[in-house]
């Protein structure tokens, strides 16, 4: 099928207002939240219903065209980077909340619904949706499902995968299936829901998502503790965990990150602080009150210079706003920067931070650190100026070195941003060929033709063997472009 015929077919499915094919318009979709990689999609489709989304995928399948799904386009690993000969399926118009069932503590939503919208919808009844990535005001639930998004509060409450209980999914051949129990626990069968969440759009498109809602805790208390440097702050984190306390969140920012956030949202961080921790406890009042005192004491023991306690919701919101805008705010102190997302065991924190600083010094670059200290998820922001000859290359090198340092400490190359396009070459550093081949088995079961978000997550294009049944040679294999798995 040629492009024009495909466009006509897609227009039949979603209507002309749902198909974008003009070059200037297409170009606005050429990258997601990671602007380093750009590919102009062949066509953009904006379905408004699950049926239209299914029709779109089926049309792609019939035309033999790959597709990439995209939500709000805020991903930081290039997971929604289009393919030039493929269709970009944008789910931003599927933003209805189908059902809120407080008795079963579930909400059933379309993938384009924004993360924060879910909480807004149920806040009046005293409920909320727990995963809260920093981009929660704009990122979509469908994107969260694809990336298994985390957030500041996943230390205590877990990730998207722990809060999604049901999915309606369009498989790459257009088949519609339901995964997970929805409102009921323990559905018999394989936990394909668990495999799907975090698969970065490579297994299909979620068209309806059932989410777990939590009751708002009785008490929430938040403090902002300043330290001389990250070593002391890291020590405070260890002490809190060792005391058997599981805070809702422990976030750390270093001086450079504070400088950026201060410029953006005016939190009034204590002057001269080398690091701050934002520690939040929530739960039953009596427990929170007791443990909060202990956290305060432990921060002091670790050498905290000043401790501010949020007096009210506004101040708490400000503490968080500073933290959550930090990524983008770094744009205020550096022309360009690269957001890294590595994970280390929490206890390795001080060592790895020192290593990062050494690596940065060696390359004459600055690194701002913002991270989820409670679970060892680092977000080093490598600052550079693309205009200065060679800086971008050095920044990329440094970003890679940081990942290797994480892996050396038994960590991971990504805690929440996903592998996407950006990090696929690092995946083999974390996993063996056997490990990756085994993951490919799942891919082959869902998407034997490799149509869903091709070229992401896994480093080399691999084709699914035709087992069972007689084996045929795939054209790409013949052309030497791929090896058969």
């Amino acid at each position, binding site marked *: 099928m040629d492009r024009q015929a495909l466009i006509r077919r897609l227009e039949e499915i979603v209507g002309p207002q749902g198909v974008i094919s003009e070059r200037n318009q297409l170009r606005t979709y050429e990258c997601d939240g990671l602007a380093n990689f750009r590919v102009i999609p062949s066509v953009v489709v904006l379905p408004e219903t699950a049926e239209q989304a299914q029709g779109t995928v089926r049309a792609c399948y019939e035309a033999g065209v790959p597709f990439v799904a995209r939500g709000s386009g805020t991903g930081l690993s290039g997971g929604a980077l289009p393919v030039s000969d493929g269709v970009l399926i944008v789910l931003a118009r599927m933003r209805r909340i189908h059902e809120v069932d407080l008795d079963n503590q579930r909400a059933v939503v379309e993938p384009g619904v924004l993360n924060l919208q879910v909480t807004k919808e149920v806040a009046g009844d005293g409920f909320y949706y727990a995963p809260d990535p920093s981009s929660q005001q704009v990122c979509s639930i469908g994107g969260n499902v694809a990336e298994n998004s985390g957030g500041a509060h996943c230390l205590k409450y877990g990730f998207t995968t722990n809060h999604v209980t049901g999915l309606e999914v369009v498989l790459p051949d257009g088949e519609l299936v339901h995964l997970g129990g929805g409102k009921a626990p*323990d559905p*018999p069968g394989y936990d*394909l829901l668990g495999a799907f969440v975090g698969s970065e759009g490579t297994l299909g498109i979620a068209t309806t998502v059932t989410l777990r809602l939590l009751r708002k805790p009785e008490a929430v208390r938040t403090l902002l503790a300043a330290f001389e440097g990250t070593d002391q702050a890291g020590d405070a984190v260890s002490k809190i965990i060792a005391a058997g306390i599981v805070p809702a969140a422990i976030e750390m920012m270093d001086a450079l990150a504070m400088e950026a956030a201060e410029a953006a949202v005016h939190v009034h961080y204590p002057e001269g602080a080398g690091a701050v921790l934002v520690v939040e406890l929530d739960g039953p009042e*009596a427990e929170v009150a007791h443990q909060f005192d202990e956290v305060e004491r432990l921060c002091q023991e670790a050498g905290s210079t000043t401790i501010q306690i949020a007096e009210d919701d506004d101040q708490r919101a400000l503490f968080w706003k500073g933290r959550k805008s930090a990524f983008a705010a770094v744009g205020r102190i550096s022309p360009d920067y690269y957001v890294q997302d590595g994970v280390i065991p929490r206890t390795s924190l001080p060592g790895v931070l020192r290593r990062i600083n050494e690596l940065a010094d060696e390359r004459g670059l600055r690194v701002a650190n913002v991270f989820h200290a409670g679970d060892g998820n680092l977000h080093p922001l490598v600052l550079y100026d693309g205009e200065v000859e060679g800086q971008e290359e050095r920044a990329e090198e440094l970003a890679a070195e940081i990942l290797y340092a994480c892996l050396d400490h038994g960590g991971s190359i990504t805690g929440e941003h996903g592998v996407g396009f950006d990090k696929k070459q690092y*995946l083999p550093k974390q996993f063996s060929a056997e490990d990756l081949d085994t993951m490919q088995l799942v*891919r082959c079961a869902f998407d034997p033709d490799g149509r869903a978000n091709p070229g992401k997550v896994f480093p080399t294009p691999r084709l699914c063997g035709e087992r069972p049944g007689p084996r045929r040679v795939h054209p790409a294999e013949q052309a030497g472009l791929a090896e058969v798995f």
Partner: protein
Amino acid sequence: MGVQDLERGGLVETADGSYEVDGVAARFLARPRSVSEASQVLRAAAADGLAVTFAGGGSKLGLGNPPERADLVVLTGGLGQVLEHAAGDLVVRAQAGVRLADLQATLAPAGQWLALDPPEPRATVGGVVAANASGPRRLRYGTVRDLIIGITVVLADGTVAHAGGKVVKNVAGYDLAKLFCGSLGTLGMIAEVIFRLHPRPASSAVVTLQVEGSGQARQAVGRLLRSTLEPSAVELVVDEWGWPGRLTVVFEGIAPGVEAQAATAAELLGRVGEAAVAGPGQTEAALSQLGALPFEKAEYALKAAFPPAELAGVLDDLVGRGQRRGGGPVSAHAATGVLWMASGAREGDLPADSPAVPWAVREITEARKRLAARGGSLVVVKAPPHLKREVDVWGPPGDAIGLMRRVKERFDPDRRLSPGRFVGGI
């Protein structure tokens, strides 16, 4: 290299016919002591085309359909080491054959535990994952899928593969660990697992409520769920004589916290019925009884899973409003939507030729229909093989069954891993 070669090396032995998987006798038994030995065993089984079943403590061997074949049973007991306990990181890495009780004992001195409390005393770590076993505290901590962060598996052809890792937060690659949760040995052998841990609660408090009927049970649970209380478990037990039942609400944490919560809960539930905070001795007793499943003497047992708001209707369907109709004791994770029920028939009461068998089949089928109408499912978790032949133990698999079959075909193309045991005859 085939199984006989390994037999010479002592890794595999010929079974004497006494080892059965749900009535199917095994020909060979293997006891690998390392992941590489497990890989050797599976390679050999692949070479010989043997059907393979994995067994840990053996407590869940009766779960699922009887396998079509079970030529070789791989016993994981030899993989019995806790490999790494990173207390500061709240993470543990253990081999599949470690008994859960032993693992908890290892973790206790650091004031930590793996927040899983399935009732089976002999359960191993690998078995808990493969069977997706859980207990009352799942209300607070979730199930295996919420706690597992890394896995090492041995596939049907002997390939050793890892997924996840030692860090709590990790989205690199597919989450194979979750795929293996509850897969019952049909995708591969679970060899090692990495879990996130929780601080062991310093103190507990228990509130009990006598429950006169299903409506009151639902009301009590509804009130707890709408409150800001954070119980670790909400358990409902109704014995074979029927109502009244007993609701046990457990709070765990630091002493001032749990005391305050228990007092609030007692007051809240006091508006529904006769509620009381348990005294010190009673608390111990209540906790030791918690989640115990009285299946041992029952001929068959059922697990119902349903949206928690359906509790009253499900209780009416399964327990009845008045006189019991021959069912055994019922135990429910009342706030989670999971209910276990033993048959009234005792073990051996329903031989294949018993006229009560069709009655039992009808009861199960009817109950399953009613649960499906409420958005839930019913699984026969224990039954003699002849009863399993009469009734699908898993129930209708849903529209993802085709996809599940394709997953199975990719992982086990020769269909040798516990064939027929899983949903839809997988």
